[in-house]
């Protein structure tokens, strides 16, 4: 359904001319640095990685909210970036995104009804009465009582807001939903409830998910396949069932176990998470417990290890 081919998104941190004269080079943040994967109709692909690894950029680039530096995304075989006006409109209908922070992604001046009506108006779906009906049934699906229709985002709890965000994305009946950390910042009980709801809606509406999270347990629970991302690259893709026991990449194993890792000397300037390393060496080599000389020199590509299992590591056979 969705094919991502060698997608790259680099942000250029610009300095002004004077700073450049003083030796400040423009540097490039490689937020996503060559990502390839595909999502099949009806599956849930989980994407895990720590905050700052490029997950959100990936989600936005896939849906053409950012233009990529390189690479292509095919939606049903058609290039997302080559789409014309009408095709793009169709894409916006069929592929939706639920953002991480429902607090800022809902317009503070709109109430729930207006927010749910906006997508319908944008895609010219239904007459007034039909829209009303759709809104009511969507509210029911996400377990919000009709009393909430008049409320503004500030008057809703975090869980309710996130459910409203879901409703807003789903009301135009998309096929693919990219959920960017939908459970982040929610309490365990609320997030479990929302996870349950998301999976219910998937079955009910026949959706395909790209489920992005930093929380291993929810991703493991919900996903058919899991992709692990580190510093703008996918280091491992594996079936959800084999994830717990069969993961091979050292970074995935680090995520799974509470082992201690050496931390880079943080006070010496390198404060922010630098993405990628210009293609030299494996992205994980600085922290990898079992690196060898080849790891610092060449960057490993994703290789098939077993059916449905790809790893980007020199040391895995």
């Amino acid at each position, binding site marked *: 359904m969705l094919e991502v081919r060698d997608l790259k998104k680099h942000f*250029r941190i610009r*300095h002004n001319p004077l*700073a450049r004269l003083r030796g*400040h080079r423009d540097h490039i943040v490689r937020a996503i640095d060559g990502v390839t994967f595909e999502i099949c109709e009806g599956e849930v692909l989980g994407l895990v990685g720590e905050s700052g690894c490029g997950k959100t950029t990936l989600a936005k680039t896939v849906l053409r909210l950012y233009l990529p530096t390189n690479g292509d995304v095919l939606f049903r075989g058609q290039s997302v970036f080559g789409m014309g006006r009408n095709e793009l409109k169709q894409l916006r209908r069929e592929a939706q995104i639920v953002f991480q922070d429902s607090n800022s992604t809902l317009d503070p001046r709109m109430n729930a009804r207006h927010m749910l009506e906006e997508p319908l108006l944008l895609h010219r779906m239904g007459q007034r009465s039909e829209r009303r009906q759709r809104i009511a049934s969507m509210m029911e699906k996400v377990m919000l009582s009709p009393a909430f229709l008049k409320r503004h985002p500030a008057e809703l709890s975090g869980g309710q807001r996130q459910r409203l965000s879901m409703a807003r994305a789903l009301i135009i009946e998309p096929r693919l939903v990219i959920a960017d950390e939908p459970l982040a910042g929610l309490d365990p009980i609320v997030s479990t409830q929302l996870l349950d709801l998301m999976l219910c809606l998937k079955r009910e509406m026949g959706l395909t998910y790209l489920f992005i999270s930093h929380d291993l347990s929810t991703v493991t629970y919900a996903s058919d396949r899991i992709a692990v991302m580190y510093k703008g690259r996918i280091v491992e893709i594996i079936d959800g069932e084999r994830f717990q026991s069969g993961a091979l990449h050292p970074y995935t194993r680090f995520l799974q176990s509470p082992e201690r890792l050496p931390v880079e000397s943080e006070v010496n300037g390198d404060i922010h998470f630098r993405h990628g390393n210009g293609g030299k060496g494996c992205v994980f080599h600085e922290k990898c417990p079992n690196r060898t000389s080849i790891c610092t020199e060449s960057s490993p590509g994703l290789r098939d290890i077993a059916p449905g299992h790809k790893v980007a590591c020199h040391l895995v056979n």
Partner: protein
Amino acid sequence: MERHQHPAAAVASKAVRYLIVLFVIISLNFLLPRLMPGDPVMNVLGEEAYYGSPEVLEELKAEWGLDGPLYVQYFRYLGNYLKGDWGHSFLCMRPVSEAIGLHLRWTLALVLPAIILGALLAAIAGALAAWYRKSKLDIGFSATFLSFYSMPHYWLAMVLLFVFGFLLGWFPLGKVTSGDTTGLAYVVDVGWHMVLPLGLLTVSKAAYDFLVVRNSVISIYGEDYVLMAQAKGLSQMAVLFKHAVRNALAPLVTVTAIQFGAILSGTLMIEIVFSWPGMGTMIYEAIGARDYPVLQGAFFIIAVCMLVANFIADMVYVWLDPRTR
């Protein structure tokens, strides 16, 4: 996308921007008399010269750079301005730069202390009002400063003069000194003359700053580090004046820069009421006599003052807020 800048580069790029502004101001000064209705020659030279004999007029035109094509005039003008030759005042019969030099210091003598004292007053009052929010103290401060903020400065100057000068006779009715004094006596005399205008300016300047400080302290009050400072065991006053006010200073500096024009204008106006021999009085007299070169020179020098103030504010801001470094 965020742009990261080296502090020195930031300062340098600011400096470049200000140079451009300076250039625009000089150009504006050049263009205004030529664009405005009426003959530019008359606009620049004044009526007396204009209606004099034709030969003298030609001579004056050449002397004043009004002959030749416009672009030649322009470059000559630009060169003169940068050299410090800003024209000749018809009213007091001397170079504009000299007249301005005489008056500017008296204006600065009022403005600079007023800014510093006003900021201090505002910082203390604003912080206290924010801390005891919605108390009588807060309401009292807010009402007082708001009234001062709203009333025209020169009108307040008249009222003050009437009350403290005429009725009570505590302070002199204007001017800088009462007569021939030297040394310490002179300083004391000037100080005595300064009390009313300076006090008025200080409170006016503090009026707006007060609202700014109060608002920023209130919002800082909600920050975690203030809670943390309290949890550390600092006293209320230490939390307020060390942590909260320290972080309210940066917005205060920004506001001072933005308001510098207003405070300067306020000073110009009250100088007239207090017969204070500063730029305001000079401008007032020049308006009456349609002394265009003086008005243009005054506009130029005040603009330069504002640029300098903005530049200083930028640097102080960087110094105050480590996050901008």
